């Protein structure tokens, strides 16, 4: 984790600052292979979620690793499909076909984590 749990006030300020500078802008990358059923499911799911929760403030790139195998190393991908939340920080990796909307929203900080 990139936060410092030992100093809560600083952590809060840091996150506030991040939200200000980023203006809540999301940078997402979805890595997948070709047009498998699983890939298609993931693409559909993320598009719906983005339109519903992040309309106008997201940048989604879909990367087919069959076409760009070299990008897998740089992005440290091993499971597919993987959605990487590049911004806002902290970065997250959502492994799977994104068919569990609750988990996806929590991972993207669009919904508070369950108690």
């Amino acid at each position, binding site marked *: 984790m990139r936060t410092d749990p030992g100093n809560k006030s600083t952590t809060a300020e840091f996150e506030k600052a991040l939200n200000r500078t980023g203006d809540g802008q999301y940078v997402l990358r979805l890595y997948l*292979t070709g047009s498998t059923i699983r890939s298609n499911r993931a693409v559909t799911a993320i598009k719906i979620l983005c339109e519903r929760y992040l309309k106008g403030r997201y940048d989604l790139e879909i990367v087919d690793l069959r076409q760009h195998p070299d990008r897998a190393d740089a992005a440290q991908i091993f499971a597919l499909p993987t959605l990487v939340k590049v911004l806002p920080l902290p970065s997250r990796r959502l492994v799977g*076909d994104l068919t569990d909307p609750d988990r996806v929203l929590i991972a993207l900080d669009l919904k508070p984590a369950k108690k």
Partner: protein
Amino acid sequence: MKTGSENIMEQADGTPTLELAKAPTGIHGLDELTGGGLPKGRPTLLCGSAGCGKTLIAMEFLVRGATEYGEPGVFMAFEERTEELASNFASLGHDLNALVAQKKLMLNFVHIEPSEIEETGEYDLEGLFIRLGHAIDSIGAKRVVLDTIEALFSGLNDTAILRAELRRLFRWLKDKGVTAIITGERGETTFTRHGLEEYVADCVILLDHRVAENMATRRLRIVKYRGSNHGTSEYPFLIDAGGVSIRTITSMGLKHIASTERVSSGVPRLDAMMGGQGYYRASSVLVSGTAGSGKTSLAAHFAAAAVARGERCLWLAFEESASQIIRNMRSIGIDLEPAVTQGLLRFQAERPTTSGMEMHLVSVRMHVKEFQPRVVVIDPVTNLISLGSLAEIRSLLIRLIDFLKMQQITALFTSLTTDGTCLGATDAGVSSLMDTWLLLRDLESGAEHNRGLHLLKSRGMAHSNQVREFLLTNQGVELRDVYLGPSGAMLMGSARDALEAQEKAAELVREQLTEGKQRELERKRQAMEARIRVLRAEYEVEQAEILKGIGQDQSLADELAGDRIEMGKRREADATATPQTPAPDGK
């Protein structure tokens, strides 16, 4: 070594069998153990607990493959970053970055950060396949290492998916035809924590790192090797600056050539005890003795003799430092220092406890390979014995002796015995491996210690069975015959000196007596000759007188005869005799 895909071999009964193709690892010992290497084109599971050398063996397999067998390799690391790998292996003498630059090696770090990962549905490991496939294709890799793929289990929770995907991965590796090593962490009851052995069925190698008597030894065991014979025991292996090597007793065998050449022990009298020529070349010599009995001195003579012959000598000292040995040997007139500076003698001094037993064997091998000595001194071998059980020591020494014999190196081992009269169990256990066994005994008599040297055995040569007194003098080791006292007891030291003095005195007396007698004889001879001279003088005088007398008588007779002729003439007698008789010359 087989590098083809599959070789068809005829068995003894004539039925052709498919001999498994093998990819040599190039790791010393492992190829002997596996009969040529790992199953080619198949995955091998290498499992063991943390720190037992999995990564190292796997990397060695790739590096040797790339440098020695022309097979590029991909190292996919799940635990260490590529920079860390490169720096770790630089200390073992492998320049991974250079191999990477030459496209002989590809390092690929798969970073799994569990805290960043959220599972949101179904997935597969296609990303890993793509990366691995890309890496393999980019350098034409023939070998692959996955270290440690079980790290995936820490990042992903759906074990059902992971298991299915791993099964697919191993099948895919086989289809790719790459020889792969998959490492796995040792589990509680299974070989690997997540049961990888279920998927990798061809070859399973288990590593172990055990601590016994405060010494850690790494061991390797081939649990399974489908379709191939393999060594089944646990074999110790080592990791040092030269890489990994696995020692097996069977890896050497009794194939060394016995030399008939002799090398001097450095002590002429000792050489004389062994038929006048010394030890056989490439034989092993054990010198046992109690503390301070002169084992090191004997070794120093041997080393000095080797150096004098212009041969290189390696001295492995486990008790004294090099300078201490040099100083001490100077006190008995052996100066080893010039040989050290000339580079003919090398001391390798270290406490045996600084490293495990196997490490010593490897360090000996390393020094021998590098220094190429003809003579090796190990002083004392008993200190190694403190490192393990007798069985382990025997196995170590067997391998050490075999190794030295193969290199045609003559080795002298010193061994410390606790009691001069009875031999230590270790000696008895070790001595059967030795060709020549010298025993230095402390013999106590007349309230003093003296040293005695026995030649207990010396294979393949006539040798003296007599005890010699062993003296350390300013000129080095000296062997002397042992005096036998009147009671048959051996006399040594001052008792021997006393006896010698006694004998000398008696000798002197005898000499004096003889001289007196000779003088007496001379005198008698002279007296006799004087008498002879007197008698001869008297005789000569008498002879002269007698001869004179004879002469007078003759002339008288002549005269008388002349008178008779005259008388006859005068009487006109024609005496017949007279004219024939010549007239004697009157004197």
